[in-house]
């Protein structure tokens, strides 16, 4: 008998938890940067199309798979997918739905701990009176475990442990009393903080408080459509990728949350409500904060340069300084709101990452909720420490790439094929519309069967064989040279090896050699974790056979 007797408290709570699972740091840090880099306002067209033909179908697929598995007492993907396909190997594809969460949580909780730490530093006024270089140096010093301004040895590790303890404790309280309660508080606060900062972001006036541009300059930069870019496969690939990551599909968390919904209750409307809530946070709030404020105070050229390394730099190295242009009190309040909203975005996602592992241990090995939650905390701590200690050697980026990027696409591709072609579209469709509180458009039967798997296949192949510089025209006409960002060249460490070959400074050579070592070591570690989880799934399967449950 499974020890899993969890339930959701309310429908709104479930939707807020599911929206919280989807809303993450990427809504505020990744989306605006992707939009700026991929055609500005024109990016929104492929983005919304991908949401309609890939995002919504995947949400419905995952919600219905989860609810279907829940009928048989399964709350994690290995045995949810096992009930849907006759081939016994499917459960090993389902291992991705646990592995991804543990590996992503390992580094994600580290960023989450930065936000917690920055809330604290905003409250005590650490950034007050600092110039931009000092704020930037603070971040570099912080992530390289340098001198702490609080005098706490290894301050980032202390905050990381606090963050993990908080996550673990909330998870140990259960679904309704823990995860749902945090979502009910965190999501409204996140939206409230976001609305305040968005208001500040769109009301900047050049010449006031040190601003060099009006908000309109930043908004023009973000929203002016460059329609020529619409024909670029790179832009479409970026849009599909953004939809993918923002909805937290391909992870196994949606399945897990939905597995606690009874078969007579709606999932179609729930999925739409949570999905559009995520879009609101991403497009409306995410688009009105980072870029308009940064451009207002730093100018287009500086921001263009900064976004090359992603949104993290702007969020942690620039915004704390820019907020103080509004005065000491408003600067501190805005810092608390900005890092507070990032913290709520982070924790509602990291809590979701804990639930598949907990559900698996409860279902298969009869663990109690509390023990399973603490085992998650310990697992994440052990796997996450390399990302903290060897951050500068790219361990963090390796986790993000393999667990937080490639694995999602692989799992989503498999699950879309399983759902539409192995389980069968007719049965799958019945699962989606069963108990539905909305009329699901019939066209989605066709989209889920053909368009979504093909799009996912294209995203996967496009990432596997990305042509140099994203020049698909040259690649298709015969000279297909792989870009260093392609999965194949990543696997071969081409970029690092090229840098190593051209380096002459002994210190740089040593740094690159160390990086190469840590990159390979991270991959071996992640692979070992996957194999260990697959072994656990095998043991669970054998146990089920012994107990006559299969």
């Amino acid at each position, binding site marked *: 008998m499974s020890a899993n007797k969890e*339930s*959701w*408290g*309310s*429908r*709104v*709570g*479930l*939707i807020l938890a599911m929206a919280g699972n989807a809303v993450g740091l990427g809504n505020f840090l990744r989306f605006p940067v992707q939009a700026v880099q991929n055609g*500005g*306002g*024109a990016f*929104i067209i492929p983005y*919304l199309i991908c949401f309609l033909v890939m995002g919504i179908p995947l949400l419905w697929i995952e919600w219905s798979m989860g609810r279907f598995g829940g009928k048989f007492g399964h709350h994690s993907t290995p045995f949810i997918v096992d009930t849907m396909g006759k081939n016994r190997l499917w459960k090993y594809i389902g291992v991705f739905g646990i592995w991804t969460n543990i590996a992503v949580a390992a580094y994600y909780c580290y960023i989450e701990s930065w936000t917690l730490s920055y809330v604290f530093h905003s409250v005590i006024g650490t950034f007050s009176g600092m110039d931009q270089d000092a704020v930037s140096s603070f971040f570099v010093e912080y992530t390289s475990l340098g001198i702490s301004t609080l005098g706490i040895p290894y301050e980032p590790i202390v905050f990381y442990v606090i963050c993990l303890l908080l996550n673990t404790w909330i998870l140990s309280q259960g679904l*309704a009393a823990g995860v749902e309660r945090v979502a009910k508080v965190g999501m409204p606060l996140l939206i409230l903080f976001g609305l305040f900062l968005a208001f500040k972001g769109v009301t900047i006036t050049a010449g006031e408080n040190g601003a060099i541009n009006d908000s*309109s300059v930043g*908004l*023009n930069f*973000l*929203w*002016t*459509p460059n329609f020529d870019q619409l024909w670029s496969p790179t832009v479409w690939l970026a849009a599909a990728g953004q939809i993918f990551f923002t909805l937290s599909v391909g992870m196994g968390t949606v399945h897990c949350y939905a597995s*606690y*919904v*009874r078969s*007579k*209750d*709606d999932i179609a*409307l*729930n999925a*739409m*409500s949570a999905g*559009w*809530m995520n*879009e*609101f946070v991403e*497009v*409306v709030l995410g*688009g009105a904060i980072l870029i308009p404020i940064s451009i207002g105070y730093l100018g287009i050229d500086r921001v263009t340069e900064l976004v090359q390394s992603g949104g993290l730099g702007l969020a942690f190295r620039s915004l704390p300084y820019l907020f103080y242009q509004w005065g000491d009190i408003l600067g501190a309040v805005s810092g608390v709101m900005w890092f507070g909203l990032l913290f709520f975005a982070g924790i509602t996602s990291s809590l979701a990452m804990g639930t598949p592992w907990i559900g698996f241990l409860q279902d298969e090995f009869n663990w109690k909720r509390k023990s399973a939650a603490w085992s998650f905390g310990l697992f994440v701590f052990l796997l996450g420490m390399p990302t903290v200690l060897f951050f500068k050697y790219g361990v963090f980026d390796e986790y993000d790439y393999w667990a937080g990027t490639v694995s999602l696409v692989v799992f989503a591709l498999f699950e879309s094929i399983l759902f539409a072609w192995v389980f069968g579209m007719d049965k799958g469709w019945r699962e989606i519309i069963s*108990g539905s*509180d*909305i009329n699901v458009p019939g066209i989605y039967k066709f989209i889920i069967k053909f368009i979504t798997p093909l799009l996912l296949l294209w995203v996967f192949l496009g990432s596997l064989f990305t042509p140099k510089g994203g020049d698909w025209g040259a690649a298709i006409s015969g000279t297909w040279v792989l870009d260093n960002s392609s999965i194949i060249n990543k696997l071969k460490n081409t970029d690092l090896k090229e840098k190593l070959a051209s380096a002459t400074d002994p210190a740089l050579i040593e740094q690159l050699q160390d990086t190469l070592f840590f990159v390979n070591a991270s991959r071996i570690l992640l692979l070992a974790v996957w194999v260990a989880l697959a072994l656990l799934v095998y043991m669970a399967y054998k146990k089920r056979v012994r107990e006559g449950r299969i």
Partner: protein
Amino acid sequence: MNTSALIVMLTTIGLVTFLMIYFFMKVINTPPRPEPDSYIDNDDEADRQVPGH
């Protein structure tokens, strides 16, 4: 702001906000199913019990 940026921005924000509110209100206004349902907070509400259960 230039006109094209303004049109794209307002259309997108309007569309996304409308759909977010529309679906959330639909959730709020849809009457819950009789017990036993998936949610425990309303388990004890007398008017939602099915006779014989």
